[in-house]
């Protein structure tokens, strides 16, 4: 198992009360280890951890487990995403055990997009468990050392459990309670859908405080730069659950075409800065979608300090020892 990184990493950030930063690494469509390593190297030293997505948007990619391992080798703490879309309860539990065995420090458990949105719309949607049940399964696996079947596992995995929530999807009044349910089931941190609408977001945060959820769960707000009008249109119409309010639309359309990218980045910077002022927001999750090289720039401009010693060289070699034989 890789050693707990001194100062860097998600758990350390939460423990220290430091504003956490996570980003995203989408594994490639191809047996290309370098693609993951390249993205990880762009993020190394700038983020506490990076999500490794699981067949994002229901498109077939390299598995999140392999991607997490590659990211870890490249010195970036992974958050392994795991969805209920492609696996039944046996496969989910075996991947959770595998993540534990390989020392992957965080898992992010979600229901997942429906296959109809991806490159294999004819696939069988599994959804044997839902996101809440998967969180609960992970917690009992880790804390009680039992599978859904009741059989004991030994040794137990040690990852932290994350999940997702979309504060902007109806029914708005129920979204905080839905997260409360996931927290009751075992989630320790949550990453949200893109925050563009602060009115809704702050109302959701207030609901979470009322329910006592913020004492039990770290809230990481999702952000990302919209760098073209095409991307804006795509976000508005083709990504399930993304809510882009009109003022964002007006702002991006109100600048000359060659300034849209910069305006989108500036808007993202301002969003990060504003989120940092909201009580109980523990960090941001930067979904840069192909703009990984811009992550340091956004963080620098937003004034977010770099993680203290995000996986030092020493730790990197240490974590490589355990898996070096796999080469």
């Amino acid at each position, binding site marked *: 198992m890789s050693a707990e990184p001194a100062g860097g990493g998600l758990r350390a950030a939460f423990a220290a009360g430091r504003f956490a930063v996570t980003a995203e690494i989408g594994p490639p469509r191809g047996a290309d280890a370098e693609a993951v390593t390249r993205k990880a190297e762009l993020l190394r030293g700038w983020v506490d951890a990076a999500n490794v997505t699981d067949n994002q948007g229901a498109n077939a990619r390299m598995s999140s487990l392999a991607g997490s391992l590659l990211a870890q080798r490249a010195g970036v703490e992974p958050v392994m995403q795991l969805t209920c879309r492609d696996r039944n309860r046996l496969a989910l539990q075996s991947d959770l055990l595998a993540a534990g065995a390989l020392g992957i420090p965080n898992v992010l458990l979600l229901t997942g997009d429906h296959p109809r949105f991806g490159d294999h719309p004819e696939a069988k949607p599994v959804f044997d468990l839902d996101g809440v049940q998967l969180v609960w399964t992970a917690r009992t696996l880790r804390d009680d050392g039992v599978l859904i079947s009741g059989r004991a596992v030994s040794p137990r995995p040690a990852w932290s459990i994350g999940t997702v929530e979309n504060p902007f999807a109806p029914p708005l009044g129920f979204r905080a309670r839905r997260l*409360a349910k996931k927290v009751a089931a075992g989630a320790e941190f949550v990453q949200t859908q893109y925050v563009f609408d602060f009115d809704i977001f702050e109302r959701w945060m207030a609901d979470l405080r009322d329910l006592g959820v913020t004492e039990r769960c770290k809230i990481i707000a999702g952000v990302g730069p919209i760098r073209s009008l095409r991307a804006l249109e795509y976000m508005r119409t083709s990504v399930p659950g993304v809510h882009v309010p009109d003022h964002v639309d007006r702002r991006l359309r109100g600048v000359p075409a060659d300034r849209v990218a910069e305006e989108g980045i500036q808007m993202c910077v301002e969003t990060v800065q504003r989120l940092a002022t909201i009580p109980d927001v523990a960090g941001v999750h930067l979904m840069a979608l192909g703009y990984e090289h811009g992550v340091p720039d956004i963080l620098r401009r937003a004034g977010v300090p770099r993680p203290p010693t995000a996986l030092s060289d020493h730790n990197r070699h240490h974590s490589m020892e355990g898996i070096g034989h796999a080469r």
Partner: protein
Amino acid sequence: MGFDERNAPGGGWPRPVIPRIGARLSYALHPFLATNPVYRRVGAWLERRQRTYRWFTRAERVAKEQLYGCRMCGQCALPDTGYTCPMTCPKQLRNGPCGGVSASGRCEVHPDLVCVWVTAIERAQGGGHGADLDLLQRPVDHRAWDRSSWVNYWQGRDDGLGVAPGPDDPRPLLRRELGLSPR
């Protein structure tokens, strides 16, 4: 090549159903089906008689299909979901809506239909049963498909389907784990 599910409404993924019977009436009818020693014995008797059991199950299917769009998962969640069947969700989510519900409350998979959980939450809260939504619904036992959920329920097989994980405290998960009562 390829096949567009929108042109094939009969097949494919589950489609959200708006129940044909009000939530209040459903809650009012529940006592007539609630477990009691007589029903438990009737259930056991039915299970010993395959032919009768099949007829009974067929009657249950017709009634619940017409009223709720029931898909016969055999472990009925209706009493906990404002009498709105979660198995008609294309993802068959038993613990609340996914994050893909559109701004107008439509299903992400069937944009022409209202999300079944939007309906469920309205009905549960409207009927004064909002707290039911905080129950943790356990994973479905897929061996129970096409079996009578009424018989299963009378036989006590649904006990613990929608409560806290832990037999010591039957209160809803939220209140047990977080020490709060939902609003």
